[in-house]
């Protein structure tokens, strides 16, 4: 809640603020979906400021444990906007994304990504 995340696709939004984590009692982590409110947007984009959107967290500064026991963490908190079905709204994704998304079935985001960490 209230976490401002960077939007790393070309959907038009720049910053979103998390208003609800869809899963997890303690909040959303890397790879989870959130409901967010667009706080900052590009003037002509698909998404406008004030819109409520769904997003998938693709980078989190908080480390997340991997199945081999190691932990990964990223430099910032970033999100990719998706629709209710989980398909990304934008057509490009910037920066590295974790391969935890594969397990969460966000394959489309993985294919758009430039680098999978």
């Amino acid at each position, binding site marked *: 809640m209230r976490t401002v995340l960077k939007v790393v696709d070309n959907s038009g939004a720049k910053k979103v603020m998390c208003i609800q984590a869809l899963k997890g009692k303690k909040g959303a982590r890397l790879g989870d979906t959130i409901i967010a409110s667009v706080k900052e947007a590009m003037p002509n984009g698909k998404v406008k400021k004030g819109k409520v959107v769904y997003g998938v967290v693709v980078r989190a500064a908080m480390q997340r444990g991997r199945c*081999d*026991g*190691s*932990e*990964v*963490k990223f430099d910032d908190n970033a999100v990719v906007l998706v629709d209710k079905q989980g398909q990304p709204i934008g057509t490009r994704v910037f920066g*590295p994304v*974790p391969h935890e998304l594969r397990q969460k079935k966000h394959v489309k985001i993985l294919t758009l990504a*430039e*680098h999978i960490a």
Partner: protein
Amino acid sequence: MKKNSTMVYHSIYLEKKRLEIRMLKSVGHNFYTLFLSLFDQLVLGNCVLLVNLRRMRLEKCWFCSSTVYPGHGIQFVRNDAKIFRFCRSKCHKNFKMKRNPRKVKWTKAYRRLHGKDMTQDSTFEFERKRNRPERYDRNLAENTLKAIKKIDKIRSDRASDHIKNRLKTSKVQRQKEARKQLELGIHLVKAPLALAQDSSLCLPKIKVNVSQAQTEENQPMED
């Protein structure tokens, strides 16, 4: 170190490709990635090929260059997609402090840069990162395990030799300093009278009379 001429070895030679060797180090998840160049003179025994059962790899810590075993350490992904792996929080914290490992004395980077540790050796050629998985063959796996042991031993021997050679010069210096100290401080261990008699820098020789040896016959005990 005989060059073994099995069929597999030959076929690999004929293929003229670089091979990646990953293998089970022991029971468990640990894998060790080796590289065998066909043109390397130090090939030991058979070439070994093994396919990786799982995506597990022994990584190197970015800061101190020690191995990061699976289940340890933290992986930090920067936004330019560069991955930094750390073996423990010590290295991670140093990284966050923006320290340069080449200036931090206890890291391998520093030691290699300043010539403290061995830098160039053919044994390092065996351990290189390759991304091609190989087909599993039990014999080859066994042989590579043996090879790893041997290569390790050779490498550590050479490394310790390197360090020994580096420290050789200090022994001469230490002896010089000890001699000087003895000259200055001889009055602490040798009485001045003895020094006057015998002005060498050694401790005075004390003569002890050794008693005559007992005869073989049994001496009657005193009543």
